């Protein structure tokens, strides 16, 4: 990433932090909170989905674990912020389990498996009312001294900066190169000595950790959560779409994606009221059909502004494997 981009990013983030000074209106701040929250979530997802090319549709699991971690640990008397950390730890442990099983699968099976895990988590949460409050929900403590949307907004910006920094660092490191190699061709990656399983797992763990923090923030804002709010597939899809719309595998993609998507969604809700899901669905269809590389990806192709449009990997058909003599199951070898 060139230095110029760093400066641009820095300026934008600084401006973002100053926003609450200008805008006092709670409604707007809440929207902006959502924008930055999903930007952070999208960046986190991007590590696994964009750079490593493992398209997870079950990230709600980590989000939910973060949320419920905060809720449940503080219920037994632990300090809220420590509860957040515990939530993150729990989320990372889940990621280890989920990754161990899912990463062995290729293609749609991987995605389906991540969906399955998230759903199991959701259903289990719904059906253990004594522990989690089940469908009725559970209370979540306030993380900040005041119940002010401002604090939440600022935290979401901070989280985004964190996710951004992590992504930027990874992008220019050996880890990042390895992830991209895995995305492009796992067999080739193996042949140059890359332990694909290990790197995929690491990208997932980092992703899960950041997502969990996001979940905890979100939960604390609402002060009360139910399973279908923090663990449904809709959240998983939203996270993935944010990243893909903006450009999976790019540094700025998820941020742009979140800005566009969240603001558009809000506008749709107001204008179209009943039909907003329809428009949302239509947006997804349009993105897939016409913008598979996301906004940044398509721009990068036209303008050569950023270094590469790696998301084009998602539009290129895989070549026929010459190693197809033997039997290959859905397992990656």
């Amino acid at each position, binding site marked *: 990433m060139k230095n110029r981009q760093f400066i641009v990013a820095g300026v934008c983030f600084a401006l973002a932090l100053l926003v609450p000074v200008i805008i006092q209106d709670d409604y707007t701040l809440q929207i902006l909170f959502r924008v930055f929250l999903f930007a952070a979530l999208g960046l986190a997802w991007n590590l696994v989905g964009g750079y490593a090319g493992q398209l997870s549709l079950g990230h709600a699991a980590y989000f939910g674990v973060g949320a419920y971690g905060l809720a449940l640990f503080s219920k037994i008397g632990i300090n809220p912020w420590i509860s957040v950390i515990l939530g993150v730890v729990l989320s990372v442990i889940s990621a280890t389990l989920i990754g161990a099983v899912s990463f062995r699968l290729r293609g749609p099976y991987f995605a389906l498996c991540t969906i399955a895990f998230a759903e199991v988590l959701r259903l289990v949460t719904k059906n253990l009312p004594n522990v989690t409050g089940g469908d009725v929900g559970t209370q979540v403590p306030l993380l900040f001294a005041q119940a002010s949307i401002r604090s939440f907004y600022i935290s979401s910006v901070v989280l985004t900066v964190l996710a951004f920094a992590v992504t930027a660092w990874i992008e220019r490191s050996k880890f990042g190169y390895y992830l991209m190699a895995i995305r492009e061709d796992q067999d080739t990656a193996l042949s140059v000595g890359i332990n694909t399983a290990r790197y995929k797992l690491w990208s997932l763990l980092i992703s899960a950790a950041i997502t969990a923090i996001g979940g905890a923030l979100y939960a604390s804002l609402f002060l009360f959560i139910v399973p279908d709010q923090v663990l449904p597939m809709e959240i998983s899809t939203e996270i993935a779409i944010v990243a893909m719309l903006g450009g999976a595998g790019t540094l700025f993609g998820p941020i742009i994606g979140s800005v566009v998507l969240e603001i558009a969604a809000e506008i749709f809700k107001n204008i179209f009221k009943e039909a907003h899901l329809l428009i949302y669905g239509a947006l997804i269809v349009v993105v897939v059909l016409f913008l598979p590389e996301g906004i940044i990806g398509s721009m990068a192709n036209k303008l050569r502004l950023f270094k590469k449009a790696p998301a084009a990997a998602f539009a290129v058909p895989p070549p026929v494997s*010459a190693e197809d003599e033997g039997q290959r199951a859905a397992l990656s070898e």
Partner: protein
Amino acid sequence: MPLLEVKHVSKRFGGLKAINDVCFTVTPGQITFIVGPNGAGKTTLFNLITSVYHADSGEIRLGGEDITYLTPDRAAKLGIGRTFQIVKPLRNLTVLENVMLGAFLRTSSPGKAEQEATKVLRFLQMEKFLQLPARGIGLPMLKRLEIARALATQPKLILLDEVVAGLPTSEAVKLAMLLKRLPEWGISTIGGIEHVMHVVMKIADRVIVLDHGTLIAEGVPRDVVHRAEVIEAYLGSKYKELAL
């Protein structure tokens, strides 16, 4: 001490015995080529050596160490580099980045990896292509890219799977001459699979002939090519009398 030993290795896929009790060794400093008609199992052999597949029986040793049941990335770390018959460049990365991937095996620093990759690409006369995306560079360069990437991992033994196939003769010859210079690069031991016989004749020290998974001949190229079994394998028994 031999660098690579393949001892009584067999592999079957379902009902098909792809490799049948194959034995050979590769001595350091030698250039060995595996030839044979299509379907003889040559690529399977490479896959067995690099643990992409695991042998059903027999063992494979690298420098004395048993490498029969590893994983491909372990094999690479232990010093086996390979190219693929159907080139697999990482399309969305540049040529340089592709090769850096190989270099990263021996260093964690992107700077050093870039240096090493540049060196390798220079050796293969690809300086012009460094910053180009791997997608659009044409087959001859893609083949060299495969080799470059493998070279960057600083292997003890490099396995070249049909690197010359599909190239126009002029390109093939150029590449062959580059390959002959690999020892300058510190890699004196090369294993290759080839169909393009004139290349094999030019650069191989030793030739191994596979047919239907079985090793039917080995030796100096000049000799092997005239052996009856070899001619029969390629052309059928009618032509056996062509043997000297």
